[in-house]
């Protein structure tokens, strides 16, 4: 099974939907709320976002694919590919 990591914000409804997608589909995932993380972790996440042209959350890493925004169809495709 592909490793799934989510970067999210505790205030973002789309981030909650993204977490629900993986929970409902019984896909294990690691999740970090950017706004609740320490400064060093925030810096690391921002570098990743910038490197991938992302300006907002949710930010999902499925295997080696990055998906920015709440995009359940793309999540499903990435999990299958």
């Amino acid at each position, binding site marked *: 099974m592909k490793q799934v990591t989510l970067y999210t914000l505790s205030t973002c409804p789309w981030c909650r939907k993204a977490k629900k997608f993986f929970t409902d589909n019984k896909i294990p995932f690691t999740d970090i709320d950017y706004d609740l993380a320490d400064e060093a972790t925030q810096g690391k996440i*921002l570098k990743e976002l910038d490197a991938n042209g992302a300006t907002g959350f949710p930010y999902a890493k499925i295997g080696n694919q990055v998906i920015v925004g709440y995009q359940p169809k793309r999540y499903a495709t990435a999990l299958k590919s």
Partner: protein
Amino acid sequence: METESRKKALEYFFDKVVGPLGFKFTPDAELRDFLLEQEVTLEKKHGIPFCPCQPLRHDRARDMQIVCPCIPFHREYFDSMKRCWCGLFVHNDVTDPDSLPQVPAKDVRRD
């Protein structure tokens, strides 16, 4: 400050700002209410109603670009999506906000 009264105040103010830009509040009442509540929470914490779905960078110039409504700072991008990133606002002609996905800035078509 009471959350509900502040939500109403932000709603009143935002409506005046986004209307002339060709945007309106999302017709999704639940999403609208949730996002406004998060903005009030952010305002209580930081003094400013930042976008609930974009990161604060602790860089004032960049953080000012995600103060709601942040449409003027991302006009071309949001016009292309017909919504703002968090979805609180959609183009005036939008009736089905669920049909408008979040698209990363680098993937947006700008015709």
